């Protein structure tokens, strides 16, 4: 009897597994066929395989392709910065801080207010570098404070509750901050002031034409990442953070102030989101109360892609996701004959999340989590 039961349950379980394998195979096939068709178009546009699904497609010119990669990279660097916050909080507390996207939005919003004021005062045009430092400073300050306050009010009392409870709370926090921004600043889209000519003009780097803003974004992201790496790997505070991430109880036995370390983690994550917010403002030059929502979810995707809890992975995941989302519609979907591919950019990002979790749930670079979080 028990053997029959065992066999039966085994069969049932493998039904789902078979289905998952089926999805894996279908998705992999689609991607491979799409890429092959794209390569076919590039090499010989008239060949029957390239024309099979989409006879109109003629592939991309070299410049278009380079442009896609560059915008993907700069977008991805921003996702990476936000993803760091998700990754750090997940590593330390083991829950997804859904409101982190809103922390990013707060940074963008405060940067907008500051830049408006600086523009009115004339400093924006006369001394752009100084004003850039000022708005970055303001954005970091507000985002950090927002992150710390949410931690204090919403998450600290729930530290030992079941895992879904803080997640649901963070959804509430996210909606609260979003709509508080709506109430305070109104629903209209706010524009950053015009950037100086020397920054925004096209430059050519290694035969690629790039807008100067995108270079700035990548440089600032790299600098922040370097600073964070130094903080986490080389300082006392960073060691405390890693210890708390590994095991809170033992860390506190070792004389580490766990509460303080968690607050620092939130603060540093918030600061990174603030930098990301300013970069968003420079790149897209507009902000609304909804700005944080999609980038937030995508940044979480980036954190998962890179392996949650793993900081280098978060940055790499961000770059990967940014490039995938700008390239994949043109390279995989267009040759497959899907019209209006640019609308599906966001859908691609979410599909990447599903695919990563289907193929390699621990992310591309492996998770770095303590034992208790892996359960």
């Amino acid at each position, binding site marked *: 009897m028990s053997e029959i039961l065992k066999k039966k349950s085994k069969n049932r379980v493998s039904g789902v597994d078979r289905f998952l394998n089926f999805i894996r195979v279908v998705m992999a096939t689609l991607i491979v066929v799409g890429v092959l068709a794209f390569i076919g178009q590039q090499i010989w546009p008239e060949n029957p395989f390239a024309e099979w699904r989409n006879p109109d497609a003629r592939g991309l010119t070299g410049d278009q392709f380079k442009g896609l990669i560059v915008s993907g990279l700069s977008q991805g660097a921003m996702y990476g910065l936000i993803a760091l916050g998700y990754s750090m909080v997940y590593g330390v507390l083991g829950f997804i801080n859904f409101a982190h996207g809103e922390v990013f939005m707060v940074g963008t919003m405060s940067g907008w207010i500051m830049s408006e004021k600086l523009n009115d005062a004339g400093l924006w045009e006369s001394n752009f570098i100084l004003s850039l430092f000022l708005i970055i400073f303001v954005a970091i300050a507000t985002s950090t404070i927002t992150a710390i306050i949410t931690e204090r009010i919403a998450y600290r009392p729930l530290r030992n509750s079941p*895992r879904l409870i803080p*997640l649901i709370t963070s959804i509430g926090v996210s909606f609260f901050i979003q709509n508080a921004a709506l*109430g305070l600043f109104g629903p209209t889209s706010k524009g950053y002031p015009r950037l100086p000519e020397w920054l925004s003009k096209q430059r050519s780097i290694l035969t690629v034409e790039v807008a100067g803003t995108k270079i700035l974004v990548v440089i600032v992201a790299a600098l922040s990442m370097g600073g964070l790496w130094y903080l986490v790997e080389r300082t006392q505070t960073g060691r405390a953070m890693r210890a708390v991430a590994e095991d809170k109880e033992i860390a506190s036995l070792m004389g580490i102030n766990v509460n303080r370390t968690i607050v620092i983690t939130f603060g540093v994550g918030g600061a990174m989101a603030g930098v990301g917010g300013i970069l968003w403002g420079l790149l897209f030059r507009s902000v609304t109360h909804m700005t944080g929502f999609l980038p937030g979810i995508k940044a979480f995707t980036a954190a998962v892609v890179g392996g949650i809890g793993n900081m280098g992975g978060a940055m790499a995941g961000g770059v990967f996701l940014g490039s995938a989302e700008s390239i994949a519609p043109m390279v995989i979907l267009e040759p497959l004959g899907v019209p*209006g591919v640019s609308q599906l950019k966001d859908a691609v990002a979410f599909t990447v999340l*599903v695919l990563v979790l289907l193929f390699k749930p621990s992310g591309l670079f492996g998770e770095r989590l303590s034992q208790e979080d892996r359960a």
Partner: protein
Amino acid sequence: MMSTSLAPRKLFDQNWKRIIFWGSICALSQVFICLVGLPAELDRRILIKSTLSLGYLFIIWVPLVFGYVVSKMVELEGIENPKPGPADLLSGAVTGLLGGLGLVILMLGIDNFDLRDPLLNWNPRLFRLLTFENGIGFGSMVWLLSGVGLGTLGAALHQMTSRIRKMIAYATFGLFILAVLEDVIDDLSEGLRLEWLSDMIYDKKGGVTVTSAIVIAVVLALIPMVTRGKIKEKVTQYRSNEEPGDQQRNSIILFALVAVVFLVLPWFLGGIVNELLANVGLFLLLALGLNIVVGLAGLLDLGYVAFFAVGGYTTAVFTSPNSPWFSPETHFGISLLAVVVMATLAGLLIGAPVIRMRGDYLAIVTLGFGEIIRLLFLSDWLKPYLGGSQGITNIPGIDLGPWEVRGADPRSVFYMVLAFCVLAIYVSWRLQGSRLGRAWMAIREDESVAEVMGINTVNSKLMAFVVGAVLASFSGAVLAAKVGSVFPKSFEILVSIIILVVVIVGGMGSITGVMVGSLVLIGILGGPRQPGLLQEFQNYKLLIYGALLVFMMLKRPEGLVPTARRTRELHQEEYLQDAWLGDDDSDQQEEAGERV
């Protein structure tokens, strides 16, 4: 039990740091509420004629609550607290005063600086509202005095006997509910030919009149005086005496009574209130489905709106003559079969990949699926089948032989929704105690243990997804027939979140809780696009939903109408502590939990 053997504190023996902390938070929250625009926007809604509008109510509850909080004593086992006395009143008063000071500073700020550029509500309108159009001096006096008064009152709540506290609670909440329900009562009294009743209570221009407010408050306050807790006593006595079987029978009778009331009620109600009830029903249907997924099985599905959309779109494709791809028009009944099939498929398709994921990954991935489905509905790619951003229009009503259910006749829609809701309630009720339902609850509590106990977790979870999906798709189908069109815009992620709030506020896993939750939240505040009784809230709904979600999670994660099992799960540590402190105590607790 309060330990009150110590003498009360001296008047100025205060923890000033704590008072200043809470006072400044009180001030900040009042200023925040003003700047978010709640008072200005809600000032249109008058609760008590020429005395109190909803906008002012949103400012004045703050010092009351903070006065209550600041004078609350932490009760610790084995430590005696001093007796509450005038010192506590003083701390409440100072907190309220600081709150009033915040408003005074805000008024001075608006008068002297111009911050309108980023802050939308930094405007003369708010200034007029705060000063009562009588200058800063008058406004400051009023706010400072009312802050002191309300703070003291909040602190005094600790020192009143429970009967007086109950009287105050009955009077204020009763009045508030009466003022909020103005539309419904107006409508109902018209239907029952009792116009004199509503004319007596309400003013012509809206709001309760001052005299009737006083009369009603006094009457309501007398209720606890007269009953003196006898009703509650009776109920507990009755509950503890009854056999479980009898209790079940009684709850069935209660449900039947409620059902009969809802069957008869619509005939006495006008279009607006019926429309409101129909919306509540639609969201109740969704919430009941999500209650199975989140409440029973513990799978936090944030992409729940996807199933709603599948139901709506399937109905649209099958019944509308305008659907671009499937030209034959079928009857709603046939399309309903298609809806069930499609929803089941969607449930399996979304459920299967996420079934092995950790709880929080599952939440985000389902959120992703919800967005993917919406983006697909919106895309040019599926436009030849589903109409893209223009959606599908011209969906006919439901033809039921002698009756027709269509959007223009909200009463018929309400009955249709009611039928589906009754079905959903029956299904959830039967499932709850079934083998599958118990399996779900076991999975929710501990998945690995459940698996070891021989539960097929994969199949059970998939079943939860499918059942939830089918219920949501019914709601989508009725919505499509009611509105007559479907657009991708109606199926945003917001819907999922609002339903989640409904389920959580009501009580995860509790059918009654979900019913109460949707009636209160959707009925009063409204759904994502549907206005509720307080239409003025339209722009602030989500703000309040967000705050509510956080508050519930912090203070009462088991919801307003909790189930015993869920409560015990969430307060496990407290129970364990109680058990550690004294065995007798914990037994009683257990029993109390059982009875809830």
